[in-house]
C-alpha cells in the first residue's frame, strides 16, 4: 500500500507544489499584515489599482501583437517592441508641432485622433515590412531561424530609428484637458488614465469582435488552426498573415501613444521594457490565446502597481518597489507551476497537441 503511494507521488511534483505553496503563503501573510497595519487609505489603494489597470491595458494591447502572430505562425516576433516604438516616435514630431502651435489644446480630440492615426499607420507599415523582409522568406525554415531574424530585425529597427530621429530623449507635449480628475466620492481618476483604460478596452473589444465575427477573422482562425487545410479551402494564407501583422502593428502603435500620454518620454530604446513585459503577459495568459493576452496584460499591470505595497509592505521589507519585477516574475512562475500553458492556455494545448 505504502509503496504504491510513493509510486504515485513524483518528487518533482512535490517540490513544485512546495514552491507554489510557499509563494502563496508569503503573498497571503504579507497582504494580511499590510491590510491590518492600515498604512494606506482606500483612496490610495484605488489610485494604485487604476494606475495598474492603465498600465495593464497598454501591456495587453502590446501582448495581443505577440499572441496574434504566435497563434498564426508559431513565431515569437521579438521585433514587436520596436513596432511599438516606431509609430509613436514618428508621431512625436506631429504631436510636438500640434502642441507648440496650440492646436492640441484648442482641439484635443482632433489633435489626438491625428496622432493616433499617424502612429498606428507607421507601426502597421513597419510590422508589415518586417514580415515581408524578415519572416516570409524564412517561413519554411526551422523555427529557430525566424526567431534569430526577429532579434536581428529588432536591433536593426532600434538603430535605424536612432539614426533617423537622433539618440536623445524627446518628450511628448502635455495635453492640458487630460491633466484633470474626475471625483467619485473619495476616489478620483485622472482623465489620462481613464482615456487609456477606455481606449484599451474598446480596442480589445473591437479586436475580439473582428476575430470572432468577421470573414477575415474567421480566415485568421482557420489559418491558426491549420495553414495547409486553410489554403486548400481557398484562403489566401499570405494575405491573412499580412492582415495579422497589420492588426498587431496598429494595436502596438495605439498602445504606444497611450503609453506616452502617461509616461511622455520617447526615444529609440523605449520599446524594450514594455515589450518584454507584454511578452511575459502573453505567456502568462497563454500565448496564442487572445483573451489570455488581455487578461495577462491586465494582471501584470495590476500586480506591478499594487503587488509590492500589498505583499511586501506588511513583511517590513525596505524599498519593495525595487522588487516589482521580481514579484511579477515570481507570480509568472507561480502561475506556470499550476497551469503550465498559461491562465487561459488550455484550449490551445488541446488544439495544437
Amino acid at each position, binding site marked *: 500500500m505504502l509503496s504504491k503511494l510513493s509510486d504515485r507521488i513524483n518528487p518533482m511534483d512535490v517540490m513544485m507544489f512546495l514552491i507554489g505553496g510557499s509563494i502563496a503563503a508569503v503573498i497571503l501573510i504579507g497582504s494580511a499584515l499590510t491590510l491590518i497595519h492600515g498604512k494606506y487609505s482606500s483612496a490610495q489603494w484605488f*489610485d494604485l489599482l487604476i*494606475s495598474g489597470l492603465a498600465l495593464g491595458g497598454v501591456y495587453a494591447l502590446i501582448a495581443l501583437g505577440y499572441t496574434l502572430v504566435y497563434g498564426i505562425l508559431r513565431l515569437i516576433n521579438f521585433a514587436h517592441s520596436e513596432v511599438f516604438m516606431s509609430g509613436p516616435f514618428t508621431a512625436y514630431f506631429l504631436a510636438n508641432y500640434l502642441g507648440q502651435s496650440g492646436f492640441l489644446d484648442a482641439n484635443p480630440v482632433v489633435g489626438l485622433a491625428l496622432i493616433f492615426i499617424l502612429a498606428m499607420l507607421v507601426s502597421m507599415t513597419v510590422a508589415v515590412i518586417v514580415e515581408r523582409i524578415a519572416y516570409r522568406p524564412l517561413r519554411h525554415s526551422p523555427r529557430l531561424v525566424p526567431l534569430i531574424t526577429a532579434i536581428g530585425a529588432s536591433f536593426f529597427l532600434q538603430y535605424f530609428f536612432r539614426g533617423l530621429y537622433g539618440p536623445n*530623449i524627446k518628450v511628448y507635449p502635455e495635453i492640458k484637458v487630460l491633466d484633470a480628475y474626475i471625483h467619485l466620492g473619495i476616489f478620483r481618476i485622472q482623465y489620462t488614465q481613464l482615456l487609456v483604460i477606455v481606449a484599451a478596452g474598446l480596442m480589445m473589444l473591437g479586436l475580439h469582435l473582428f476575430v470572432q465575427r468577421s470573414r477575415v477573422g474567421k480566415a485568421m482562425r482557420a489559418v491558426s488552426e491549420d495553414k495547409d487545410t486553410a489554403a486548400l479551402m481557398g484562403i489566401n494564407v499570405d494575405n491573412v498573415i499580412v492582415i495579422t501583422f497589420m492588426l498587431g502593428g496598429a494595436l502596438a502603435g495605439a498602445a504606444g501613444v497611450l503609453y506616452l500620454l*502617461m*509616461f511622455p*518620454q520617447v526615444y529609440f530604446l523605449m520599446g524594450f*521594457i514594455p515589450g518584454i513585459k507584454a511578452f511575459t503577459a502573453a505567456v502568462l495568459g497563454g500565448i496564442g490565446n487572445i483573451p489570455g493576452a488581455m487578461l495577462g496584460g491586465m494582471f501584470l499591470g495590476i500586480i*506591478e*502597481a499594487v503587488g509590492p505595497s500589498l505583499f511586501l509592505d506588511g513583511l517590513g521589507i525596505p*524599498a519593495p518597489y525595487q522588487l516589482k519585477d521580481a514579484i511579477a516574475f515570481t507570480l509568472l512562475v507561480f502561475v506556470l507551476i499550476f497551469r503550465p500553458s498559461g491562465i487561459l492556455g488550455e484550449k490551445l494545448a488541446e488544439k495544437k497537441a
Partner: protein
Amino acid sequence: MKGKILLLLALVAAVALIAACAAPTAAPAPTTAPAQATTAPAPAAFKCTDKLGCIDIAPGAPVHIAYMFVTSGDNASLGTDTRYGGELAVDDAGGKVLGHPIQFDGQDSGCTAEGGQNAATKVAADKTVVAVIGTNCSSESVPAAPIITNAGLTMISPSATSPALTDPAKHQAGFLRTAHNDKVQGAVAAQFVYTQLKFTKAATIHDGSPYAQGLVTAFADNFKQLGGTIVDQEAINVGDKDMKPVLTRIAATSPQFLYYPIFVAEGGAIANQVRDVPGMEKVVMMGADGIFTEDFVKAGGKNTIGMFWSSPDFSSFGSGYQALVAAYKKKYNTQTLLGPFHAHSYDAMNMILAAIKKVAVQDPDGTLHIGKQALRDALYATDMQGITGHIKCDQYGDCADPHIAVYQLTSDQFSKNLMPETPIWKPGGPNYTYNPNP
C-alpha cells in the same frame, strides 16, 4: 562534383587571402633594416624601458585620446556635454600636441555596467590609444577601471563621482577623476536642506546604481548627523516608468522633502508624476548633478520649476570659464549648457596633454614614444591650475578641488529652455530664503 570544385575554389581563395595579409608584415622587414643602417646612423635608437610598455607614434600620425561617454539614449546630454568639453580643450591646444594632431574619439558607454565594460574592452584593444577620458557614470567606471588599468592605460573621469571608485580598498591604479567625490556633494545637499530650507523630514529614492546609492547614503548620513530624520528610503529600477506606486508609498510617510539623485529617464518620470500623488503636492524636490541637464527638465515638465540641484559650483571656476562657456555656446550653437561637467572634461584633456608633453620622448624625425607607466605617474603628479580649480591628485585618484553649490530652476528659465548657471547657495555663502516659485 560541382560542390567539390566550389570548395576547392574557396580554399584557394582563402590561401591567397592569408598570403596577401601576411605579405605586408613579412616583406618590409629585410628592406627596412639596411635602410635604417645607412640613412640613420643616428643617436642611439629609442629603447622602451617602461614597465607597462610604450606607445610609438610615427611622424604625422595622430596622438589618439579616446573617450568613453554616454552618447545615446536618455543620458546622452551628460556624455555630449563632456565630449564638447574635451573637444574645446583640443581646439584651445590648436589641435596639436608636440607637432602631432590630436585625435579625440571613442565609444558610447551607455551609462550601464555592460556599456562601460564594452567600451573599455574596445578602447583597451586599440593599440593607438594613449590615454582615456571617461566614463560619465560611476556604474560604467566600476567595470571599466580594471580593464583600462590592466591594459596599461590610464583613464580620467570627468563625471563619475561615486565614493566607491576612489575607495582605498577598491581603487584601480589606472583610474583618476577631475570630478568631485560624492562624499562632498551629499554633505552639501544635506547641509542645504537642514540649515537653509530648515526641513527635518526627508525621503530619498535611488535606482540601484553605485552613483545614486553612494549619494543617497552620503546625504542620509549627513542629514541624520545634523539632526534630521530620513522618513523613507526607497529604491526603483532603471527603466521604471510608473512612479505613482512608489510615490504613494513615500506619501504615506509624509516627508517635507524628496531627494532623488538618479538619472534622466527615471528622474524625469518622478518629477512628471509627483504632483499627481495625494500627499506629494507640496513636497520640495532636489536632484544632483546626474539630472542637472536640459533633457531632465524636458522630461520632468513644469513640475521641475522651483526644484533644486546640487552640482559643481560654476561661480567658483577659474577666470577662463566665461571664455569656455562662450566658445561652447558658439561652437555647438546652443543657448544653454547641456550638462554640468564640460569644464571637468576640459581639465581632464589638459591634464593628459600636459602629461604627454612631460614624458614623451621625441626622435629627430618627429616620432613620439610615450611610456605608459611614465604617463600614468605624470598624471598622478599633476599639479596645475585648471578651470574647475586647483587640480592635484591624491594616491587614490581624486584630483578635484571640489566646490559644490545648489541651483534652482526659475519659471523664466523653464519657459526659455535654459538651465540655471548661477548658484543660489554655496557652503559658507550668504543664507538663502526659500522661494517655492522663483
